[in-house]
């Protein structure tokens, strides 16, 4: 298997007089991207994901660690010899070249003959929906079309790994959605290995086979989207993925008791004792009303409604329970019955509970 492997990669940027930003470093990153996989690096701005991408591309040199492709050590190989491709945040098309010439640029560097490379470029442009645009110049295209050309340019070079640095972040939401669908389709068709950088959770979850979550130069957790969301290994990850129900408490003698004593529950055998955070996904928490049958083993919490929110098709209630403001998702009918100040009982199932240490 030809996999891309980042082995104990470290990179530090020191604080200098000229650059008044704080020093920053990637700390001992280990990561393997399998052949044909769509892997996303997800994290907030400044967490080091673009730095890691540039290290993989060879545009930056690591302070320590190795970059492998299969059994080849690429650490000292310059980017032009790695046979990777990259799509940047901006299209970065060359303005003096036509769309076809821009697309064929990588093939030209690989010394593919003019006729063959232009045929391949035009076929790839057809594939990204730009049939007939071959002889236009970049400034005659919209932003979305330019990014399609950038994608075609990257794909037509038949890269061993395609690196993508927030390629859709400069596009408007509709276009972004369209580009995601296009990329997902093309990736499946061509089976190209993709390392994708984004700070957009939806983008990462929609496209990726696996996701690596980064923060402050560290790779916190790697896994499939559902795994990360349902089994985050820390409160940091849960919070980044939008889970707000994080409750500090203690496990002892088979029971979890929240710090304020408002939430208590039995825990499964084998759950280690000590200070723990309880993580509850909003969709796992439901408001009990006459229409819903509450399972016998459900854990119930009493509280009152602070507010009901509507966001892009989802209704959410914020319920005050003890010192905690719990977010729970509602059914459409429920949202109409609830109002601020109303006493309610919320419940969740034992199997939806996740305990983490930090």
């Amino acid at each position, binding site marked *: 298997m030809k996999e891309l492997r980042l082995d104990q990669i470290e990179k530090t940027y020191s604080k200098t007089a000229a650059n008044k930003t704080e020093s920053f470093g990637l700390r001992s990153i280990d990561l393997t991207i399998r052949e044909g996989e769509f892997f996303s690096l997800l994290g907030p701005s400044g967490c080091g994901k673009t730095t890691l991408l*540039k290290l993989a*591309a*060879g*545009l930056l040199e690591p302070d320590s660690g190795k970059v492998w492709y299969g059994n080849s050590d690429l650490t000292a190989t*310059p*980017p*032009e*010899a*790695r*046979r*990777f*491709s*990259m799509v*940047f945040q*901006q299209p*970065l*098309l*060359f*303005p*003096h070249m036509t769309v076809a010439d821009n697309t064929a*640029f*990588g093939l*030209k*560097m*690989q010394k593919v003959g003019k006729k063959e490379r232009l045929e391949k470029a035009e076929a790839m442009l057809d594939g990204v929906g730009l049939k007939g645009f071959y002889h236009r*110049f*970049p*400034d*005659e295209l919209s932003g979305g079309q330019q990014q399609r050309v950038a994608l075609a*340019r990257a794909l037509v*070079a038949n890269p061993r790994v395609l*690196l993508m640095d927030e390629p859709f972040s400069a596009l408007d939401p509709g276009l972004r959605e369209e580009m995601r669908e296009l990329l997902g389709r093309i990736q499946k068709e061509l089976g190209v290995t993709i390392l994708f950088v984004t700070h957009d959770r939806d983008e990462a979850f929609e496209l990726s086979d696996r996701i690596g979550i980064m923060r402050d130069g560290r790779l916190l957790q790697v896994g499939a989207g559902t795994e990360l969301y349902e089994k985050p290994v820390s409160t940091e990850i849960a919070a980044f993925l939008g889970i707000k129900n994080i409750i500090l408490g203690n496990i002892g003698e088979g029971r979890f008791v929240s710090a304020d004593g408002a939430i208590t529950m039995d825990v499964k055998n084998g759950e280690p004792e000590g200070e723990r955070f309880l993580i509850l996904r909003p969709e796992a928490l439901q408001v009990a009303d006459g229409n819903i049958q509450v399972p016998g083993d459900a854990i119930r919490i009493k509280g009152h409604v602070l507010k009901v929110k509507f966001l892009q098709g989802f209704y959410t209630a914020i319920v005050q329970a003890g010192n905690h403001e719990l977010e729970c998702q509602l059914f459409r009918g429920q949202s109409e019955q609830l109002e601020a100040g109303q006493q309610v009982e919320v419940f969740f199932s034992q199997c939806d509970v996740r305990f983490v240490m930090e």
Partner: protein
Amino acid sequence: MWQKSKPYLLLLPATGTIVLLFFGGLFDGLLKSMGYFPAIGEVGFSFDAYTDLWNSSSFWSSLGLTFRVAFLSSIISGLLGGVLAISLFMLHNSGKNKGAGLWHRVFQLPLTIPHLVGAYVIVLLFMQSGLFSKLFASMGLIDTISDFPVLVNDPFGWGIILTYAWKEAPFVSLMVYPVLMRIHGSWRDASRVFGANNRQFIREIALPVMMPSWTIAVFIVFVFTFSAFEVPFLLGVTYPNMLSVHSYQLYTSGTLADRPEALAINLVLSGLTVILGLIVYYFSKRWNVLKGWQ
């Protein structure tokens, strides 16, 4: 009405002076070149001066020399200036901004030196008794200083060409460097991941981007050297001499009868300069393909 015409009226003294001196002089020269010269009793019009020029072997020798010197000066300064600009650009791109800035200032130094001083510098460096010949002789590369090639006051015009190449190369780089600096910093990264090394980046990206402004800069140097006077006067030979010098010598020859011919040379020079200017304009329009800069 007053508000609209006020700026033009305020500019009138300046434009009037320019029009009077420039176009007045040109018109006077045109009249005299066509034989209208009341000072020597000639009030008729003829193309005798132009016919004489056409039949004069010294005119054609001078025109040939002028074209050769202007062509070689502009090409050499263009090549030097282009290499300078690309070197500075690559130095800047390699992250050594401070070094690039310093070298940029150093390379601009010849721009501050007048042409006459530049010509003297070339004389002092390249004449047979100059610094380089002595240096070469002391290093044993040549036996005596007279073995050093004649590069100053030579019939080919090497002294003039060297002076203009040295003086105008920074001008070309000054015209080209800002254009190169407009190249998106990430283009280098983009070209590298697609397999382009430094040489390919220069050939595929930097050269096409700089070519329009480089061509215009070289044309400007050509037009300038084509009609320049002081350096050819100082570093040229008696025969053949460049057209500007030839015209000056005819004009100051002591007989007023030569003046129509001298002025005809100037008008030929002006006409050729206008034609070259139109060529520059044509190419600048045609090569205006740098659209879509971000």
